[in-house]
């Protein structure tokens, strides 16, 4: 067994889309393509609206945390330093972080490389391009920044928890005080926060950082426990990813429809 | 003149299973240049199929265990026709061989305090089997492989050896061909180690990998080496019988250990009808007591399903022969019935027997938590093989060594579970060591051109038939041989059937001289089969001759015409070799007297 020589490949690589597979291999990437595209288009549209993102105690997750903007914003109104010629929406300031988390997520990477780049279109199906650099060099080597996005993502989760809590306190127009209550929107916000947590806690980077980096977890009971939890979420990471993605859009739609007066939130108690 | 290339090594190892790789590592560590020839790819050998574990008296789980107990267990299991020297060395050296694997990267299951975990197994007094779930063999072979590729060892994958080359009486090399292109190679070596495993494929139903065709034993035999105890072929009582494509695949003893029961086609637990007098006191006489035993009740006696492998296998055969079998010619092994006894039985079965659950679901569409399995005996292991010296593993031919399943002696008349993996390690290492030592004092000897030419001419002959469109399909001869061995020289043997088998083998031999191989020499499966057939015929004949000669029932060898053990045969091994004329010569070789200290151990442990 000498030094590996370049391998001869007598059967030429498959042409684009060529495969002996008899099952509908194109179905899964097509669904990914449609759903991801729809989400991206919708969320950009919604983020650019700059209005109708808050109704009653509810705040759309696409606008959370609201740092600058409306009366409930953490810091204040539209910042003075924001150039006049630049389009303004409170979402622009914050949406890059969750977007970055999803774009650099190990699961989505694999999914959109297939669905959008056809690299490969599906397993054992021929590709359109010969050249390939993968994540070995610029630009995709930047995907390694993922762990910083999960740090941010965890901070966002705190805000979402806060939003879900706030969603339980309804202003009483009569007294001006806030009273505890549960509306359908409250539940929507709680589910949204839960799904996003499930997605974040299963993050591959997080799993590494809480204990996966160790060779020996015995003797580190806390990290062993955390690693076990992260692994449990990680096993269904794809499912969490899709559920949370769809539900974020749904939550925004729900709040937006309420705010636009098209839909009436049903107060359970 | 036939064309071939010549390759030279100090030590040539034939076979890349556990014994071959362990031997290669040892010989290389002793400075020899080593070549390993294997019929398949590296790491695919039958060793990967070993499940239970490797027996070594580490004493990690029960500190009462030591080599003396292991020695006594092995001798008792082998019914005292073992090579006692091998049993002694094996018991003494196995723990070191296992620990060594850990230093090479093996990852055994652990005890709570972080040492190698050991489990109970039939015939072993204490928990002794170091294991990795149910894939211990894979772990072993991968560890040895990953260690060996960094040593001074050359691997020749997918080479078939067709004959051993001799200089006078000494073995000085081997002739083989490379499967990919069909080219011939002469391996010149100062010492040759056979590590080619068993011969399960002589039978139709076998738990063995399909490449177990007894090649090494046949090569040694053809070269004039002595074989020993070829009649001892172990049949495991529970192999799958349905669907036909998976017939023979092992169903672990653990199913019965968990409370699984054997029933015949009439629904009767037939094992209660035939409990050997010797075991009467240790065996439950009602179903309830047997159940309690499997649940860990120490006051209960074991159910008859857990009697020795040979007895259970024979009872199954009897039921089937007398028309009380299951629809596909086995009996029912039922674990699902325990739901009458315990709550949540389905989950219990799935956690205790995960691989069995998967195996039946995947291969037979059968949910063992709901339905009974159909099982029947399956050819499992050859205790006999090349007769070797206990210390050095050298055969009766100078320069030829044998280790592992292809060598005889350690297991006597019956092998204990787990002793085969430790056998590979202990005697693989010894064969490697002594082969390297032998090679140090020896020199390469010339190879006889005429012998090489004659061998090549013989193995190429079937192509001429193929070209002329005549001759016999090797696949057909092989299938007929397997059917016949299964039928006539199986678990229950009787003289006239075996004589018929011998006769049949002679006829198949005649036909095998006229085999037909189509196509060219490149990776030609028909050609491989033609060579396998030749070896299988030699092996089958050896089994028959040994079995006819041993006029008693002992261990795995059961004869209806001599159903008891005999004093005379308790003291002898059957030894076979091919004479100058190519005919088998058999003699009964008295077993050497055991030293007093070993005798004493056996007495103490009775």
């Amino acid at each position, binding site marked *: 067994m000498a030094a590996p020589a370049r391998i001869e490949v007598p059967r030429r690589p498959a042409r684009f889309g060529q495969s002996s597979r008899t099952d509908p291999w194109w179905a899964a990437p097509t669904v990914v393509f449609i759903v991801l595209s729809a989400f991206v288009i919708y969320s950009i549209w919604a983020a650019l609206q700059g209005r109708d993102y808050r109704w009653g105690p509810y705040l759309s997750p696409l606008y959370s945390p609201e740092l600058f903007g409306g009366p409930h914003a953490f810091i204040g109104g539209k910042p003075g330093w924001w150039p006049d010629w630049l389009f303004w929406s409170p979402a622009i300031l914050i949406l890059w972080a969750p977007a970055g988390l999803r774009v650099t997520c190990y699961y989505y990477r694999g999914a959109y490389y297939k669905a959008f780049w056809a690299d490969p279109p599906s397993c054992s199906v021929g590709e359109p391009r010969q050249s390939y650099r993968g994540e070995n060099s610029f630009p995709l080597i930047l995907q390694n920044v993922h762990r910083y996005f999960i740090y941010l993502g965890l901070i966002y989760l705190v805000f979402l928890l806060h939003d879900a809590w706030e969603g339980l306190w309804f202003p009483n127009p009569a007294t001006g005080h806030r009273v505890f209550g549960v509306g359908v929107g409250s539940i929507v916000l709680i589910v949204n926060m839960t799904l996003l947590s499930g997605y974040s806690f299963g993050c591959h980077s997080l799993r590494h950082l809480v204990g996966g980096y160790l060779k020996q977890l015995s003797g580190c009971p806390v990290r062993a426990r955390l690693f076990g939890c992260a692994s449990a979420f990680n096993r269904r990471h794809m499912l969490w990813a899709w559920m949370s993605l769809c539900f974020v859009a749904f939550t925004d739609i729900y709040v937006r429809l309420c705010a636009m007066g098209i839909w009436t939130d049903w107060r359970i108690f | 003149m036939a064309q071939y290339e010549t390759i030279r090594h100090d030590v040539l190892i034939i076979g890349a299973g556990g014994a071959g790789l362990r031997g290669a590592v040892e010989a290389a560590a002793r400075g020899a240049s080593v070549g390993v020839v294997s019929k398949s790819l590296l790491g695919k050998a039958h060793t990967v199929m070993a499940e239970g574990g490797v027996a070594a008296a580490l004493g990690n789980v029960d500190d009462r265990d030591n080599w003396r107990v292991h020695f006594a267990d092995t001798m008792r299991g082998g019914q005292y026709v073992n090579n006692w020297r091998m049993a002694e060395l094996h018991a003494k050296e196995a723990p070191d061989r296992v620990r060594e694997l850990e230093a090479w990267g093996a990852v055994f299951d652990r005890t709570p305090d972080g040492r190698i975990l050991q489990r109970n197994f039939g015939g072993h007094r204490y928990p002794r089997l170091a294991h990795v779930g149910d894939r211990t063999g894979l772990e072993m072979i991968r560890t040895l492989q990953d260690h060996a590729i960094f040593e001074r060892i050359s691997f020749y994958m997918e080479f078939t050896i067709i004959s051993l080359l001799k200089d006078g009486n000494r073995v000085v090399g081997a002739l083989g061909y490379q499967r990919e292109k069909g080219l011939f190679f002469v391996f010149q070596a100062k010492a040759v180690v056979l590590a080619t495993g068993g011969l399960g494929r002589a039978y139709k139903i076998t738990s063995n990998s399909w490449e177990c065709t007894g090649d090494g034993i046949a090569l040694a035999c053809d070269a004039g080496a002595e074989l020993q105890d070829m009649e001892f072929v172990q049949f495991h009582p529970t192999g799958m019988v349905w669907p036909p*494509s998976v017939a023979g695949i092992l169903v672990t003893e653990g199913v019965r250990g968990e409370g699984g029961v054997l029933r015949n086609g009439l629904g009767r637990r037939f094992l209660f009808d035939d409990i050997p007098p010797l075991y009467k006191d240790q065996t439950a006489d009602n179903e309830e007591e047997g159940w309690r035993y499997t649940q860990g009740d120490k006051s209960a006696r074991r159910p008859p399903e857990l009697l020795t492998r040979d007895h259970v296998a024979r009872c199954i055969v009897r039921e089937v022969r007398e028309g009380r079998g299951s629809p596909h010619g086995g009996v029912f092994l039922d674990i699902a019935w325990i739901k009458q006894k315990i709550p949540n039985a389905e989950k219990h079965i799935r956690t205790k027997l995960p691989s069995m659950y998967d195996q039946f679901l995947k291969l037979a569409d059968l949910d063992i938590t709901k339905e009974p399995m159909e099982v029947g005996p399956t050819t499992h292991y050859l205790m006999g093989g090349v007769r070797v010296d206990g210390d050095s593993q050298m055969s009766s031919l100078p320069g030829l060594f044998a280790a592992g399943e292809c060598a005889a002696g350690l297991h006597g008349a019956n092998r204990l579970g787990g002793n085969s993996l430790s056998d590979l390690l202990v005697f693989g290492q010894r064969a490697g060591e002594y082969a390297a030592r032998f090679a140090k004092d020896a020199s390469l000897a010339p190879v006889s051109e005429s012998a090489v030419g004659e061998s090549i001419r013989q193995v190429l002959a079937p192509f001429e038939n193929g070209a002329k469109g005549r001759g016999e399909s090797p696949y057909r001869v092989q299938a007929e041989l397997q059917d016949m061995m299964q039928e006539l020289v199986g678990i229950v043997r009787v003289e006239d059937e075996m004589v018929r088998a011998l006769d049949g083998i002679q006829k198949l031999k005649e036909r095998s001289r006229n085999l037909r191989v189509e196509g060219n020499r490149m990776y030609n*499966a028909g050609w491989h089969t033609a060579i396998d057939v030749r070896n299988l015929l030699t092996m089958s004949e050896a089994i028959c001759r040994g079995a006819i000669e041993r006029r008693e029932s002992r261990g795995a060898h059961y004869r209806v015409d001599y159903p008891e053990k005999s004093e005379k045969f308790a003291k002898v091994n059957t030894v076979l070799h091919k004479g100058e004329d190519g005919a088998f010569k058999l003699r009964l070789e008295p077993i050497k007297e055991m030293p007093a200290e070993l005798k004493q151990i056996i007495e103490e442990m009775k």
Partner: protein
Amino acid sequence: MTATTATFSIWRGDRQGGKLVEYQTEIAEGMVVLDAVRRIQADQANDLAVRWNCKAGKCGSCAAEINGKPRLMCMTRLSDVPTNRPILVEPMRTFPLIRDLVTDVSWNFEKKRTVRKFTPRKPDAPDGTWRMAQIDVDRVQEFRKCIECFLCQNVCHVLRDHQLFDEYIGPRLLTHSAALEMHPLDSDHRLSDLRFTQGIGYCNITKCCTKVCPEEIKITDNAIIPLKERLVDRYFDPVAWLFGAGR
């Protein structure tokens, strides 16, 4: 048991060329593709080249592509593939063909030697043995289930379509590296090799390797991504360096 026949379309040929040849054979309940192929070999095509050893899914010799999907022939039941049209059986596409269904997988064995070997730390006990906890070996044991069928190498598009055989070691050997890197006793370092000569960055985590693994090893999630994260510790994350990561 009713005997029916099915048609198998088997790739026959060598490096000079070849074609699909149709064979009809009887099939019975419970048969797997390998059974049918062997029956065809015994009855109709004696010289059909095909590798098999254990016929029980434990040795990983009979890897092929069945109806375009990389699978083990011995573990693909005929009841799982449509038999009303020809069943396509082809050799693994990624490796050089030897003949018919047999390919030259030696590249995998050669490449394995580029992964630095297991190097244990000093023994823990005076008798030369080590102590390891079961929870620490669990992860490694998953990877060691690998039967080296090389289906993952075959399906990986980096090798299959882009043929980066010199730059990349493929999922099997990344799993092998992971087993060594996560081995509680191992004291060697492999990250630099992984990044600079073994091309772990070429993996774009499309998970085809995980999908085809007959041992159901979570190759991508449990082996490759954790290695990628270790690489981030060492090469890309300045914050981690502050905590001494990356050794």
